[in-house]
């Protein structure tokens, strides 16, 4: 009997425990877990990651009564009432907004969404009336720059890291085609008749030793055929094409970009010695570049042109100069006239705009990237100031008349800049450079390489391929030859020797340190749903199999560098040494060309190069089958 009682008590305790366990949700779905998951996704705000707006695109409604602002890092779209200049509504999106297109009837927005945390792009279909996302259409990696056809049935989206353009059928709400372009298309524009899509590839794709042809290209896509109809190279050394617009007649396109004077030893910065900041005029029907015009003045640079727009009446052009914090306004018909009649290249002529009634206006908005024009007002968005500013167009050429008209604040309570946000801003800020000719971003767009070989102002005096800043803080020494002790040292020497500032403001340098410390790799487009593909998994096995290859000797995880110098057989007659700092492999999918002189166009070329690895035996025959090499390449490009 006593035993029975004991059994009963035991069973009851067991039951209580079991039932109790089953309801203890908080132990599994704990408060810290929920907070952490949302905060690591940069949803919940923390002291390190305030929710900045970061306006990156400005698009007016077709009736010109509303202005839609893509608030990139806030993951929202702000709707501004054009008459009152007030933010009347904000629409929340599931990921960062990189661009906006408006349906012809002004009822829907098509917003491209993609971020460094979650780059797999989609188009969010937004019902403006409801103020909600009503659907998502999957597109490509790094989706941005949406353009809608005049009939509202087709949307074109640049997939920056898939190197292609999605063609989206807005009737079936499905991606129906991809059109291959060259490299990192960031910006595009469609002609008013919808027949041509102008796409700017932001980076060159050639090997960096190919100094006679290396440049980025503008491509014209015939939308009816869904094919590239013409590839137009910009001036040699061009890169960072971040803005495209088409004039109302559909005859011309304007493309903002930089020209890197990579053949010059970087001993000075003035007069465009290292970079000029340019605007290319493309003849769309003629499928040719009319000329490539420097926006700079003889003594002062117009650093880092980003967004560009032409007014509806075709009279004015406006360019957002992100690096020099300026708005560049010019008479568009005069510009066309001067450029068409010019003899020879204007790419390094700093007086062209003197004949075009241009005006540069210093903008009280940090690093403006987006610009648009509605009626007689220019709207320009400060990426780091979270504001939209307006300037008048109606005073023709008077600079005084173009004083700021309105400041539209996107945040109810503006967030102070954290140290790393300040560092990011300063990375884009050409006021750190003598004569505002360039910023850190000029040679390292978004902290990554520009694809060119540069002869830096140091004792090496030999061309070296620009390096990524990603993980530079954690992989000393810096530079291919390890010229600097670490990234800390490189930041300060960079300000002095590449931006030519006599005094380094230590507070600003520290903030740039902070930005570099927090940089994280963007997940590779080679991943499948965020994981290694089957091919890459096989490649991983090979990578770690020392009986086959010796990758992990010099490139061990997790940094994929042993932080040492090695002799690798990529010969260059200019080299004074044969030992080079071993680069980490993260994001190598976006850092071509490879090796210290950028002479390997592809990762495969780099891996199988004799003397680089033991993929080949000493007699030249391969250690790996071609399939194994493919797998190995796929793994490295997945990191």
């Amino acid at each position, binding site marked *: 009997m006593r035993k*029975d009682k004991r059994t*009963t008590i035991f069973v009851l305790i*067991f039951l209580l425990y079991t039932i109790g366990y089953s309801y203890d949700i*908080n132990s599994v779905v704990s408060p810290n877990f929920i907070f952490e998951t949302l905060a690591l996704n940069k949803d919940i705000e923390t002291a390190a990651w305030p929710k900045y707006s970061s306006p990156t695109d400005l698009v007016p409604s077709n009736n010109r009564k509303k202005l839609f602002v893509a608030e990139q890092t806030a993951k929202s779209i702000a709707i501004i009432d054009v008459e009152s200049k007030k933010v009347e509504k904000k629409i*929340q*999106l599931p990921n960062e907004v990189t661009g906006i297109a408006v349906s012809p009837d002004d009822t829907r927005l098509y917003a491209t969404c993609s971020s460094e*945390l979650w780059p797999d792009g989609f188009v969010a279909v937004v019902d403006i009336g409801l103020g909600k996302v009503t659907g998502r259409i999957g597109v490509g990696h790094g989706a941005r720059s949406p353009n809608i056809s005049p009939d509202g049935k087709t949307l074109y989206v640049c997939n920056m890291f898939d190197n292609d353009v999605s063609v989206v059928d807005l009737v079936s709400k499905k991606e129906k085609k991809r059109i291959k372009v060259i490299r990192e298309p960031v910006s595009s524009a469609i002609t008013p008749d919808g027949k041509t899509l102008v796409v700017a590839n932001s980076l060159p794709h050639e090997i960096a030793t190919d100094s006679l042809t290396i440049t980025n290209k503008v491509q014209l896509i015939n939308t009816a055929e869904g094919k590239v109809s013409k590839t137009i190279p910009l001036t040699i050394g061009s890169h960072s094409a971040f803005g495209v617009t088409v004039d109302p007649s559909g005859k011309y396109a304007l493309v903002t970009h930089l020209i890197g004077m990579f053949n010059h030893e970087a001993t000075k910065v003035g007069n465009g010695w290292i970079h000029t900041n340019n605007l290319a005029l493309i003849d769309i029907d003629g499928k040719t570049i009319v000329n490539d015009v420097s926006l700079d003045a003889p003594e002062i640079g117009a650093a880092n042109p980003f967004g560009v727009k032409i007014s509806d009446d075709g009279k004015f052009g406006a360019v957002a100069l992100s690096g020099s914090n300026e708005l560049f306004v010019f008479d568009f018909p005069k510009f066309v006239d001067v450029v068409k009649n010019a003899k020879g290249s204007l790419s390094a002529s700093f007086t062209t705009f003197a004949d075009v009634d241009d005006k540069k206006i210093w903008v009280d908005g940090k690093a403006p990237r987006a610009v648009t024009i509605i009626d007689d007002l220019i709207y320009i968005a400060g990426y780091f100031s979270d504001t939209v500013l307006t300037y008048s167009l109606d005073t023709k050429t008077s600079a005084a008349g173009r004083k700021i008209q309105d400041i539209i604040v996107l945040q109810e309570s503006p967030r102070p800049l954290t140290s790393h946000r300040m560092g990011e801003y300063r990375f884009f800020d050409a006021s750190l450079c003598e004569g505002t000719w360039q910023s850190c971003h000029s040679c390292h767009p978004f902290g990554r390489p520009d694809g060119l070989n540069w002869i830096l102002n140091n004792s090496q005096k030999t061309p070296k391929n620009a390096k990524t800043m990603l993980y530079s803080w954690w992989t000393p020494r810096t530079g291919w030859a390890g010229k600097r002790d670490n990234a800390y040292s490189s930041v300060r020497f960079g300000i002095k020797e590449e931006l030519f500032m006599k005094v380094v403001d230590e507070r600003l340098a520290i903030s740039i340190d902070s930005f570099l410390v927090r940089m994280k790799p963007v997940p590779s487009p080679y991943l499948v749903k965020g*994981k290694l593909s089957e091919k890459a998994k096989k490649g991983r096995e090979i990578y770690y199999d020392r009986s086959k290859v010796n990758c992990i000797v010099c490139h061990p995880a997790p940094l994929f560098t042993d932080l040492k110098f090695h002799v690798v057989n990529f010969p260059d007659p200019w080299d004074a040494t044969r030992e080079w700092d071993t680069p980490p492999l993260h994001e190598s999918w976006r850092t071509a060309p490879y090796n210290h002189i950028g002479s390997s166009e592809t990762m495969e070329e780099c891996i199988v190069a004799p003397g680089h690895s033991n993929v080949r035996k000493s007699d030249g025959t391969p250690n790996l089958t071609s399939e194994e090499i493919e797998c190995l390449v796929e793994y490295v490009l997945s990191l």
Partner: protein
Amino acid sequence: MNLFSKRSVKKRTLFVGILIFFSMAFSESDKIKRADFYDASGNHLMYVEFVYDNKGNNTERNVYMSDGVFKRRTVLINNSSGNREKEVSYDFNDDTSFVTTFGKDGDKTKFTVRDQFKVEQFGGDISYSGSGDNYDFFQKGSLINKMKYSGKRIEVMDKAGALAYYVELDNPPPIKVLKRKMSPSQMSIQQRGDNRFVLHLNLNLPSMVSCELISLSGKKVATLFSRNVVAGKISESINLSSAIPGLAGGVYLIDMSIDGKRIYRDKILVNGSGKGF
């Protein structure tokens, strides 16, 4: 009733056995398998799948973005007393991406998230207090968020109490099916001469379309058309004289359906002699 009589013991044992069975079964099925994260507008952001060991202890979590893209795997590590000591997150390559450590800040639970380089991620420790259903989150001594557990829904509010995000447990979002907006104007049949007709379709989604000839008594005479059709406008010609030789003249019905659902019916007149109406 003597609860401890032989018979009662048997009954009781049987009853307890059933209870244990159901309790365990219930417990097993009641373990949280998945949490879905939404913003206040109802946008699905992410989901997390929970992994349990064979003792029923939650040992891992896997975070995915809403489109199924893997973000990280988090391994939960407890100390010898069974309390959470740290959580280590790994990326797709099984390299450490984040480490979360726990501590106490007075009566509050404190946690810190650092990346693989030990860089603190949130700009200072996060601490929280509360129990059961309601929690308050603090950073640098200031209230930053509130959290409320309510059954299988957890709400995250800003410091003013406005809903910012919510989490649904074991209630994944339905796979969205685009609503068809079919109307007769998007599907029609037009006579184009003797027993020849043109079927017009304007579909907003690729669909299985079929077209049947029905007698007035409701009997299916023939399937005139049945195949997958791409989205957009298409036209399909049907010649009844050649499709159904010897078809008797008279009034017939045409039934048109999309993915098995009839959306259009119309009458047609068939000339049995093939010489028009």
